[in-house]
């Protein structure tokens, strides 16, 4: 009994179950299936069909996961073994670690801090380091170039993404995600500062390698970039990491711009969590849909978008927030 009680303690339940690792896994499975299904719809074909036929092959991804699990992970000669094997684990772990700081409802959170927004943003920044390390450890020119490309990109998307997220913190006068969500009872952040919302959405998809920014692992150019040498379940981990990161950023985005658990004012953790999850799920689904529409940008064009478009836009979003504050828009309280 005590064990079950312990499981439902927020500091265990949130990072591990919801919206933590298990929810992330389930979302991963659904989203990859959905991505293939949506793309198939656009491309006039069926997509996954045979595994659990009545529901349109919905557990195809589970079958794929099992295959990955039992596939032989090949470790090539000449790689840095420790770095090669450990980086996927760290990459995946760090991708979902920010979940500890994301609240599910005003009363239900694993870890409340005055600076939880900063904490989440800081933790998401750590993951790309491992992608670069992965490219280096693989001892393969395609991996190396892929890793370097990731490095290039990180610099161009992180700064404007932080700026546009922090412009909202300025507006809410808080870095606490609970307070930020609560401040949007009457009006959502996306309506107050649409520039920041647009910039962050763009950069969110860019940072998680969605199309048209699927640049580090562009298969027609540099095979699979940093992941070229990976196989089996360690490949499954690195591929899953970007989806999990997208999920985490979608949760943050929902709290920053889409009112978090609003519009249903609720202290019920289950209801609030569900609303938050649905919003995040939609954002992830949009990211998956982009695959069907766009080819991928060239790296210099993506970096150009980061610096020439997103960076000025994020500065404008800060100015917009400041002018709103000076204009007397009060959200807190």
């Amino acid at each position, binding site marked *: 009994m005590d064990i079950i009680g312990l499981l439902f303690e927020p500091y265990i339940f949130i990072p591990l179950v919801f919206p933590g690792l298990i929810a992330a896994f389930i979302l991963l499975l659904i989203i990859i299936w959905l991505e293939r299904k949506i*793309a198939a719809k656009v491309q006039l074909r069926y997509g996954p069909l045979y595994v659990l036929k009545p529901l349109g092959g919905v557990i195809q991804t589970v079958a794929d996961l099992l295959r990955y699990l039992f596939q032989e992970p090949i470790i090539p000669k000449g790689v840095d073994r420790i770095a090669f094997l450990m980086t996927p684990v760290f990459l995946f772990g760090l991708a979902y670690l920010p979940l500890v700081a994301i609240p599910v409802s005003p009363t239900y959170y694993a870890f409340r801090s005055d600076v939880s927004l900063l904490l989440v943003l800081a933790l998401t920044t750590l993951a790309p380091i491992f992608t670069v390390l992965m490219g280096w450890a693989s001892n393969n020119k395609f991996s190396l*170039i892929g890793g370097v490309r990731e490095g290039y990109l990180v610099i161009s998307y992180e700064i404007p993404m932080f700026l546009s997220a922090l412009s909202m913190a300025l507006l809410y006068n808080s870095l606490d995600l609970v307070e930020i969500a609560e401040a949007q009872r009457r009006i959502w952040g996306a309506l107050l500062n649409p520039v920041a919302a647009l910039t962050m959405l763009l950069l969110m998809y860019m940072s998680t390698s969605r199309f048209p920014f699927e640049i580090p692992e562009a298969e027609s150019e540099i095979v699979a970039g940093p992941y070229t040498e990976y196989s089996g379940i360690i490949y499954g981990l690195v591929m899953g990491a970007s989806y999990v990161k997208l999920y985490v950023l979608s949760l943050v985005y929902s709290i920053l711009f889409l009112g978090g658990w609003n519009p249903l004012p609720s202290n019920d953790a289950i209801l609030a969590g569900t609303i938050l999850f649905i919003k995040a799920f939609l954002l992830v689904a949009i990211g998956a849909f982009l695959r069907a529409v766009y080819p991928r940008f060239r790296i210099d064009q993506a970096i150009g978008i980061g610096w020439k478009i997103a960076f000025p836009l994020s500065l404008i979003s800060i100015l917009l927030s400041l002018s709103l504050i000076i204009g007397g828009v009060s959200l807190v309280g």
Partner: protein
Amino acid sequence: MSSMEEREIELLIGPQHPASGHMRLVAKVDGDVVVELRPNIGYVHRSVEKLAEVKKYLQIIPLVERPSLADTTANNLAYVMAVEKLLGIDPPERAKYLRTLLAEINRIHSHLYGLGIHGVMIGSSTAYMWCFGDREPFLELAQELTGARLTYSYIIPGGVRRDLPAGFGERAERVLRYMENRMKDYFDLYFNNPVVRARLEGVGVLSRDDAIRLGVTGPNLRASGVAYDVRRAEPYAAYPELEFDVVTEQAGDSFARVMVRVREIVESMRIIRQVLRKIPEGPILHENYEKLIPPKLREEMKRRGMVKFPSVFANLRVPAGEAISRVEGGRGEVVFHIVSDGKLSPYRMRMVTPSFRNVILFEHLTRGVRVADIPAIYGSLDYFPPEADR
């Protein structure tokens, strides 16, 4: 210079790379910029020219189709035209129209193949799926006409192997209307997509002078503003009697090359419509050969619209001499040169395929571009590795 050399990485793209096809590209890259790109084409050796010297004239027809699987009719037609020149015969009018019909159906699905490959090379799996899906109706049309899906071997010395099936016209019309509707989707989602434009415009620019100097052929030449088309320059089959425009673009970049192919699909559809309207009645095999067929078989052939080869056909003996023929294939000019010494096999056969003439562009267009531009340029050239190595 030595410090520059240390900066460069030699990157071997292919032969086992998602975007290399059956060949290897040896790229020297400095960071993300390509310093030099040398294509190494010799990975699908087919030795068609050598094999042709030991095979009989009819056996060579399926052989010459092999190097260019997406565009078999052009090779088939060019080879047969060279043989016919040596034989000194001219096929009947109806056969000429049927040859044109198949050539244009083939051009459309060859172009769709190229566009699909190009789509996936810049990351658009949708363009790939659409183009390959929309090849299907055209493949089926060709299959209905010839009985084969890809290597038709439809054109034989003196005519064609089969007559037009009943009801072909309506079915073709339905396919053409379908494709016209699809064209709008292609433009909405792919060709007018800002990302596609950003990836293709101004990338791999081939100037008009360079295009002429390097001996480029086909859509790649016309994308640089040179209105050269063998169908106009040296008309063959039924082309002199048909109306069509030679599609050209001025920009010479990757986008122009893709656009030329898209617009050529439209022109080809126009030609198919005219062929189906204008096709005359008459025999499909030259009278010299028709009268060799035993009367009973000849009657059955007329009834079923399919040519039964007379046995003498297998040992077709071609008079001594030389002949050159040229045809505009999907990727450019196909040239056949046959030297005959009057025996059962050609003394020497030489084929010049468009991809072999276009391979030089890899080195020329990729100097100083980004690594990501390599597949974009590769795809826009519609390069088919087996065709280069024959």
